[in-house]
């Protein structure tokens, strides 16, 4: 900002030049991301409203305590922290790809784009496992005086308040909004991750074909990078709202 040494009295709005010293595409990517932030914000705030309005809400440490190949071990937060670190790391490789792009180093961009794509695919794999585990997992629920085995779906939530039944504590059906919000919001985020991976693959192919070398700059990598970092940014808030609090 200050280091670009812009002469005093520059008429930014006189036309012909970008008022913000950034290209149209990049500015519009930022405005798209801002609108997307409002979409996710609205989802998460609506989730918060429903959660504030009911007396009981499932404890995330209890719902999300499984880890692949760990059987029934109680590992609260473990798997989701793995997913968080995967996404943070793929953000770092993305920003390194942008950095190599500034230096016009095609090999460097290719290497870091591949790593970013792999990070995105790893995250999607984790999410697929988590969804499968949540939907197919069976939890004892007391329904109309009978014990049933339920998974968590958009119509069923086995993590309601616990009651005494035949001498032991059994949970009752919880608010169904839990599944709806969880699958809705993490699904919408996962779809963003998926489209980010597709965009990154296209950028990788275009890099390989030398399109950006011909163009003289790697700005497309920067724009794809903005989208990818936004996906990471949203996950930071999803992680907060669904798993931490």
């Amino acid at each position, binding site marked *: 900002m200050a280091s670009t040494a812009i002469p005093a009295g520059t008429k930014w709005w006189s036309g012909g030049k970008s008022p913000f010293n950034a290209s149209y595409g990049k500015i519009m990517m930022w405005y798209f991301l801002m609108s997307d*932030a409002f979409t996710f914000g609205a989802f998460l705030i609506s989730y*918060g409203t429903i959660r504030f309005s009911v007396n009981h809400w499932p404890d995330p440490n209890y719902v999300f305590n499984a880890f692949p190949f760990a059987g029934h071990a109680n590992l609260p*937060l473990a798997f989701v922290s793995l997913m968080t670190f995967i996404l943070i790391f793929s953000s770092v490789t993305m920003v390194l790809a942008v950095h190599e792009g500034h230096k016009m180093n095609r090999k460097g961009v290719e290497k870091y784009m591949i790593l970013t794509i792999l990070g995105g695919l790893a995250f999607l794999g984790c999410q697929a496992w988590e969804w499968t585990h949540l939907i197919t997992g069976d939890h004892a629920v007391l329904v109309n005086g009978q014990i049933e085995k339920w998974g968590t779906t958009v119509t069923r939530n086995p993590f309601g308040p616990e009651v005494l039944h035949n001498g032991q504590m059994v949970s009752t059906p919880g608010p169904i909004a839990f599944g709806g919000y969880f699958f809705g919001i993490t699904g919408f985020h996962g779809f963003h991750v998926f489209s980010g991976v597709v965009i990154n693959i296209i950028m990788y192919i275009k890099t390989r074909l030398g399109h950006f070398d011909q163009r003289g700059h790697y700005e497309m990598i920067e724009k794809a990078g903005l989208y990818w970092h936004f996906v990471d940014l949203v996950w930071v808030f999803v992680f907060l709202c669904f798993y931490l609090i």
Partner: protein
Amino acid sequence: MSQHHTISPEISFPPQHAEGTKKIWKTFWILSIITIIELAIGLAIYNIHEGENPNANLVLFFKGMVCILTLAKAYYIVAIFMHLGDEIRNFIMTIVVPLLLFIWFIIAFLWDGDSWKNLRNTDAGSRPNIEKVAPAAKQKGAKD
């Protein structure tokens, strides 16, 4: 500014990019450490819930802490990884100022949710000509 770097003509002043990756890795470590602190707080909340007498105020305090830490993480991702900190100030403002709407948005809707809970738990929300749900049925009900 390197000479082989051509940029789009609408850009008046070629941006200066950092030579090294030191700042990127520093940000990575900051984000990782904040995440680890958040996880530690998350586990602390879990242990408080597991304990004998859960202290509601302490849980609320910890939840407030993770919210603040999350905002710090968001700042680092946006300012450093997305390079918003390197843009012109007026541009930063066109992004950040509209996001201030979230302050109203969060307060208004969480307040609304809390108000619904109060109506649910008291007679204030019941209308006289609607049959009241028996407490026992309500506890089991799938609606709650």
